[in-house]
Every structure is written in C-alpha cells, then in structure tokens.
C-alpha cells in the first residue's frame, strides 16, 4: 500500500506535466486548428530560462527568488509564443495558406528552438536545485518529493485558471466562438489577430510552467523538448481536443499507465518503453476524438 502511495504521487506529478503540455497544444489548436510541435522546444527554453533566472549556472550573479524566477520564465516563454505567431504563423494564415503551412513552419521553429537551446545551455544537462529542497515527504498513505507535490499544485492552479478563462470570461467565449466557426466569429466582430496572438502567448506561458517544473525536478537539457512534445500530444489525443479538462485527464491517464506498466507489467523494460505509443495508437484508432467531447457543435 505504501508502495502504491509512492508510485501514485510520482505518476500523478508526471501526468500533470503531460497534461500541461496537452493544454499548451489545446490553447493553440482550439482557436486556430494548428498543431504546434515546437511546444516541446519552448518548454526546453523555459527550463533554461528557469536555470538562468534562479542563477545556478548560466548567470551565477542573478539569484532571483523562486516566485520572481517563475515570473521571468512566464514572460520569456510568453514572448517566444507571441513572437512565433507574429513572425511565422500570422503571415501564412493571412495570405490564406492551407493549414499545413503553419504546421510545417512551426516544425522549422522546433529546429530553431533546439539550436538556440544548445547555444544557450550547451549539450550538458544543467541542474537546477528544486525550490523546496529534496526529501521524502509523507502525507497519509502517499510519499513524494516536495517538487512532486508542488508540480501537482501548480498544475491544478493552471487548469483552474484555464477553466475560469474559458467558462467565465468574455475572452474565453471569443476563443470558443473562433473554435466553433472562424468566419462567423470574424463577422461577429471578434478580432482573429488578437485571439491568435493571445493563444500563442498563453500556450508559450504554459510551456514555461512546464520548463520551470521540469528544471526543478531533473534540470534543463537540450534534448528534453521532443519527449515532452510527444507526451503532451499523446495526452491530448487521450483526453480529447474539445475541453480543457480533457487535457488534464489525458495527462493523468498517460502518467498512470506509464508508471503502472513500468512497475507491474511482467514484460522486459525495453517493451515497456512502447506502452505510451500503443496507448496513442489505440486511441487514434478507437476513439480519435478522445475521452471528453467538446460541448455544442464541436471543432
């Protein structure tokens, strides 16, 4: 029982990271229809920004407190998102390019992001001490590190904020309107440019949260982006692209399946590596819309 408690905390914390990545996809995908695979690299850049801002290796002089470092990371990755939208996506969309064009352009952004990451951070893993230290913390039957509980708490905060945004604010309604029918939304006076820009900036900020949390857990590493992009995409497919809660649900399911398979499936560890991909393929075949359906109309 104690063992399951340990496993659950780490699996849920991992699932939260996947869920956040899925949310970052969703924020762009809902209003624009674009799948942005460069998200993983944004999270990687966020992790490097986190290491730099907390002053461990890149800029030893700069030793911001955690909250300030967090803010810096959000600004950096939010700007990256906005900049990418303005520089690569907007020109293509406004010239009426097919949807595939911005997706390919964003793959280019992925490569650029990876190279920038190696230039900034080098090819060694850069450690970043966890903001709340490292020890075993037991809460009832559960046991985890401060960083794993922190990850879960921050993720809940982000998802509550996203839910309030979509369900309770006029901006959220605009996003939904654009998602349901782009042309009609434009005719109703919704500024598509603003929605697009905000979607990319918000997605960038969510990637920044991921980078910050990942850096505190196992440091910043130039190759950390692609796995995050794949894990987030898998979580998105599982949970469904229609609703914010779906991203979190998909992430948690992926995290739990991964951990339970690695721990209890009586198969060689090399085969366990394939379990998340089997899950992805199963969902694409059997339930391509994911577990949670979009409300009214759908995308």
């Amino acid at each position, binding site marked *: 029982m104690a*063992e399951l408690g340990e496993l659950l905390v780490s699996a849920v914390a*991992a699932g939260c990271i996947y869920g956040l990545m899925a949310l970052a996809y969703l924020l762009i995908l809902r209003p624009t229809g674009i799948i942005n695979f460069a998200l993983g690299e944004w999270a990687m850049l966020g992790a490097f920004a986190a290491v730099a801002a907390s002053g461990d290796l890149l800029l030893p002089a700069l030793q911001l407190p955690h909250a300030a470092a967090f803010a810096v990371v959000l600004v950096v990755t939010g700007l990256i998102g906005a900049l990418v939208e303005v520089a690569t996506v907007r020109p293509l969309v406004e010239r009426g390019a097919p949807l595939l064009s911005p997706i390919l352009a964003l793959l280019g952004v992925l490569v650029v992001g990876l190279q920038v990451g190696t230039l900034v951070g080098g090819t060694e*893993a850069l*450690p970043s001490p966890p903001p709340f230290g490292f020890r*075993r913390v037991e809460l009832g039957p559960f046991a985890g590190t401060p960083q*794993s509980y922190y990850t879960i708490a921050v993720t809940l905060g982000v998802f509550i904020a996203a839910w309030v945004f979509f369900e309770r604010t006029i901006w959220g309604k605009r996003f939904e309107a654009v998602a349901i029918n782009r042309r009609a939304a434009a005719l109703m006076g919704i500024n598509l440019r603003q929605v697009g820009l905000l979607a990319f900036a918000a997605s960038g900020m969510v990637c920044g949260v991921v980078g910050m949390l990942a850096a505190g857990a196992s440091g910043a590493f130039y190759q950390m982006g692609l796995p995050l992009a794949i894990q987030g995409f898998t979580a998105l497919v599982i949970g469904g692209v229609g609703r914010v809660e779906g991203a979190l649900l998909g992430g948690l399911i992926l995290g739990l399946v991964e951990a339970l398979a690695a*721990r209890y499936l009586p198969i060689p560890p090399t085969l366990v590596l394939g379990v998340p991909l089997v899950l992805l393929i199963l969902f694409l075949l059997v339930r391509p819309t994911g577990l949670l359906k979009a409300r009214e109309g759908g995308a």
Partner: protein
Amino acid sequence: MKVSGTLIRLTAGAVAIAAVSTLPALAADPIKIGVITDETGRAAFYAQPVTEGVKLAAKEINAKGGILGRQIELVIEDDGGKPDVSATKARKLVDAGVVAFISNSSSPATQQAETVSLETKTPHITPANSGETLATELKNPYFFQLGPLASTQIKTLMSYTRTRKFKKVAVVGDNSGLSKIIADVFEKSLKGNGIEVAVAEIIPMGSRTAVPQMQKVRAAEPEAIFQAGIVGPQMAQFFQAYHQLGMKQPILASFNLSIPSYLKVAKDMMEGVAFIDAYDPDKPKTKEFIALYKKEHGDEPFSLPGYGYDGLHFIADAIVRAGSTDKEKIRAAMASTKGWSGVMGAKGATVNLSDEDRRGFDPEGAVVRLIHNNNHGPAIHSGTK
C-alpha cells in the same frame, strides 16, 4: 617606493635572463604537434578538459626550453565530435606540417582520423579514448592508444565487486545507445563472475520519474546496484528515486562517472558511489600534476586533463628518444616504449607498446574511486586481480 623600484628592476632583470636563456630555442622553428578536439559536439564535455591538459603540458615543456632545443607549437582543430569531419581535420593538420597528432574527440572520430595517419604515415595517438578496437580494427602502425580499454575498466570494477562478495545485484541504465552497451557488458561480466543479476531496469530518456523502475529494483532486494546510465536528467532521476525510496544499497558505476559534469546533476545525492577511473590523486607524479594545474587554473583538476597532459608528454618523450622530428623515427620510438609512466594509471602502472600491441595502458592500471563531498575522492582499489 624605493623598495618597489628595486623589485621592478629585479623582475626586469629576471625576465631578461629568462628571455636570453630561451633564445636558442626561439631561433629554431617550433615543432608542430596537432590536436583534434571537440568544442561543440557530443564529445565536447570530455574532449575539452583533455585538450586543456595538452595545452598545460605544452606550456610546461616550452617553459623548460622545449625539446631538441625547439619549442612545441600546438595546432588545434575542432571536429565537432563528427567522424567524417575528423578525417578532414586530420588531413588539415598533416598539411600544416605536424610531426604527430593527438585525437581527443570521440572514439568513432578517432577511428576515422586513423585512415589519415595511416595514409600519410604520421604518428597518431589517443590519450583518453577507451574504444576497444581502435588499435586493432585497422592495421595502422602509426596509431597508438594510451587510454584504458573499456574491457580493462570493466575487469577492474569486477575485481572490486569480487572483494565486496555480492551474490545478487541490479543493473540500471537508460535507453541511450551507449548506456545499453554498458548495461550489456555489466550483465555479461557479472554473470561470468557467478553473480546473479536479479533485475535489469531502463529509465527511458524523457521520462519524468524513475520511481516505478527503482521500486522494481527495491522489490528484487539486490545487494548492490550497477549504474550504467549516460543521460543527465535520467541519472538525476535515478539518484532522486534511490533516496526517495529509502534505498541503501551500494552503487557501482561505469567510467562515465569519472566525467566531472555528472557530479552536478545529482548534487549531494552521490556520496559513496564507486566508479572506475584511471587516476590516483595520491600518486606522487599525479600530485605534481595537480599542483601544476592548480597554479595555472586556480582549481583542482579532475582526471580528464591528466590524459591530455600525458599524451603530449608521451609524444615529446618519443621525439627526444628519436632524437629527431622525422616521423618514421618518432613512430619507431613510440613503438618501442617500455615502462613509461605518467600521471594516469594506478601507482606503479606503466605504458608499454610494441608493433604487435599498440594499446599501451597497463591492464592493471585502472582504479576504483569513491565520490566524496560532491567530488571525486580517493582510489580504493586498483587492478584486476
């Protein structure tokens, strides 16, 4: 004021004397020695410190008047760790007139550069590469390997393992190519020594936690854990899970943990980890090297610069023994090296080379060290007996 004036005059005098004494050396052309390093690629994190050692040795030799009355001039090229580029860079060095060159980049890059040393008949050494077949794959009489072979390192770790009398162990790595190779070698050698591998686990690259894998390891109740990992974040997760799950088993690791950057990925979590190295900080020659390095750089060296330092001293020694900068004569001097010793290797270890065996590292020369206070600590075991 007066005192400092005298001091200045004294210093100026000393500088003038030093300049005069090195004049004959300056009069002759310098001896060019090539270095292929990796400054930007995947081997950079070990190639760069090794090259630092080469530079330190060049400075030391030149300060003492050089060799054969001539100064040494290093010609350094960066191959980015890429085998195809490495051969091109080797050719560039030979065209620049080097009498010998050193490969500090990755083993595959060195393998490619060998085609050039063979073709151009240029003495070529690798001081640090541990690739098993570097000196046997190609019949290249101009190439010499001074670093400890991977098999020597594993045998040394197994010899240490026998002294600990483990019966049942675990092997944990990641899914990078190199880690898989190390984990395989660990498993085979452990079984060969009659030790049961109770569980072999992989922490996949990009995973966010190693708790499931380490729970499996804990449940198998091994007496020790062999760490075969390479990738930094997964190494960090291994140590985090180990501590979080309250595990106490001794950890034995590959020679990768002799690379200092790993000390930072899991700071404060690696106390007592045993790893393989080829460097004993208590050896007199090594102590001299440490003092010299400290004077130059201000901090203590890890083992990596020692490889490069030995590499250049080995070439300089061969040139002196050859009494000439003729490439054939240098090669012959290298191939007849007997009982040469440098900074690297356990106490009493020597480098021996011949035309039949161009792998010079003493089979009994590798050591097992412990990590202590986030640093590489003392050597506690050496040799394979």
